[in-house]
């Protein structure tokens, strides 16, 4: 095959990848519509679309769609997108396929923060009580990632060190959470356990807006770093040789990961495995050119989370399962598959 034929094939491959990213975006939007039509009060798709497009509908329908279901559905979409993007960047900069906010202690730290608010009543003064748990969860998870970066820097910032610290943080936060659960009253304990299972029910347009803003700010920077991130996948020495400041790349990527993960987790509780499964499915679809991998991860995560939100309403009729439980049930097989496939470094 001649050089120009090979280049043609390369361009065709890229167009196919772009199309796949577009398809994932469309699927994610369809998943949101399905999510919107699912719920205790049966609303057909046509009625939902009529409501969304501003047509004349009964007031009850309007309230269900705009105030109850839409914030939840949009939040599911955003949380999935945020966690999968965080997972994709983390896996690349820590050079580990199992890295994600959940496995490296961010979620555990958020749960500990929520526990401190729920059980001990300690939170930021002068904050509306409704935001206390969220604020604590946010600060603790951001703190966990900050600590991770600091520890990493003390020891040279290599990926192995960061991974080990992340795992240690995970266990530390879990241990303190157990302590809180032990001393908690029955009522507090129930609230805490439900929080740690992850739920979309407490969200409102305010929290949706905050997460949307965080995503809007971080995504452009992530996309701008996509060539550097791809270079890092070839190895740290290679990337440095190409002129990439790997230390700075790692630091900024982890800052983006911190903001995305801390915001998402603080608003909906512990959501496992989206940050793991999203990027891995995306990688299988479009490869590791981060110009495609990052957007594909975002839409795959959004799609998975929307599907989980829908499933959480359908799995047991009449019961709304915590969405974090559903994502774990979806994600665990992926996790095992990744380990059993036994190809390190991918």
């Amino acid at each position, binding site marked *: *095959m001649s*050089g120009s034929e*090979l*280049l043609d*094939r*390369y*361009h065709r*491959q890229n167009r196919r990848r772009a199309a796949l990213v577009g398809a994932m975006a469309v699927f994610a939007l369809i998943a949101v519509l399905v999510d919107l039509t699912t719920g205790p009060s049966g609303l057909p798709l046509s009625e939902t679309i009529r409501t969304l497009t501003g047509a004349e509908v009964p007031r009850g329908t309007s309230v269900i769609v705009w105030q109850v279901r839409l914030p939840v559905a949009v939040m599911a979409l955003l949380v999935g997108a945020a966690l999968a993007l965080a997972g994709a960047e983390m896996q690349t900069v820590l050079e580990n396929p199992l890295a994600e906010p959940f496995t490296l202690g961010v979620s555990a730290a958020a749960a500990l923060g929520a526990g401190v608010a729920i059980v001990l009543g300690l939170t930021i003064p002068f904050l509306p009580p409704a935001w206390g748990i969220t604020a604590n969860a946010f600060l603790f998870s951001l703190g966990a990632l900050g600590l991770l970066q600091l520890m990493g820097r003390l020891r040279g910032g290599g990926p192995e060190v960061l991974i080990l610290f992340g795992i240690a943080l995970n266990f530390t936060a879990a241990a303190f959470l157990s302590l809180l659960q032990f001393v908690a009253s029955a009522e507090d304990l129930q609230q805490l356990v439900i929080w740690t299972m992850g739920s979309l029910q407490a969200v409102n347009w305010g929290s949706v807006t905050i997460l949307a803003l965080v995503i809007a700010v971080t995504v452009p920077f992530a996309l701008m770093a996509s*060539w*550097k991130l*791809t*270079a890092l*996948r*070839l*190895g740290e*020495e*290679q*990337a*440095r*040789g*190409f*002129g*990439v*400041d790997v230390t700075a790349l790692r630091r900024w990527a982890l800052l983006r990961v911190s903001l995305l993960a801390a915001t998402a987790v603080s608003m909906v509780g512990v959501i496992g495995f989206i940050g793991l499964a999203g990027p891995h499915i995306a*990688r299988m679809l479009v*490869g*590791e*050119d981060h110009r495609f991998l990052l957007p594909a991860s975002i839409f795959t995560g959004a799609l998975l989370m929307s599907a989980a939100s829908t499933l959480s309403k359908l799995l047991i009729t009449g019961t709304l399962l915590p969405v974090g439980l559903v994502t774990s049930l979806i994600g665990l097989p992926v996790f095992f598959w990744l380990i059993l496939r036994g*190809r390190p*470094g*991918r």
Partner: protein
Amino acid sequence: MSLTLRDVSTGYGRRRVIAGLSLPDLRSGEVTTLAGPNAAGKSTLLKAIAGLAPFTGQIALDGQDLAQLSAPARAKIVGFMPQSLPSGASLNVLETVITALRASGERAVTEPPETRAMAVLLRLGIDHLALAGLDQLSGGQRQMVSLAQAIVRAPRLLLLDEPTSALDLARQVRLLSEVRRIAAEGRIVLTVLHDLALAARWSDRIAILHKGGLYAFGPPAEVVTPAMLGEVYGVIARVERCSQGHLMVQIDGEIPGGASGAGAKERGAQA
């Protein structure tokens, strides 16, 4: 065009590997080999020149102090082929070479990056691998890809860390003759090689590093001598010329008691 190294010291953390090393200027069009026993600091010195290891002293290309340049600016004029092979990412060969071009933030000037990357693959005779996944390649093929990544930015200074370690005999010759052609285009090439016969055949000058400093520097015939091999590597050796006049290095054994060199302990040193 010349590369200047004056009073260069480098190492890892507190451990000094190279102390106060100065070299006669390396000139464009020439291939210089860095050789020496294991742990002599060859790779570390190469990394310092590439800006990947901290150093003190002066390293300058055409009078331009390399330490003053930002990483992307340095990457434009210095190509570095590390010893480690590119890992098995889900990327094809062409993508990795394009990445090597784009990661430093360089924008397309005259021709699209993919055209430049493809031209380099053609030049190295690995264009048939363009769309093969990196994880499907043999070690030797990856080493060729690594060279493609190092030369795609058309650097004025090319640094190669054991570029032939994973290559079979035919590919060693192909790579080194390509390296000679690259030098002939007016570039400076500095390479680490363990095989002194190979170094003698393909380089203009050889620098022998030993005990953190420069032991010898000059044309192969002046540097590669039984006395040097005994003192630096701790081996009993003969250096002879073949019927075509090329140097041949024959190792007959180790010097009992280890002579003065660390090489006696480092059995990995080959020549």
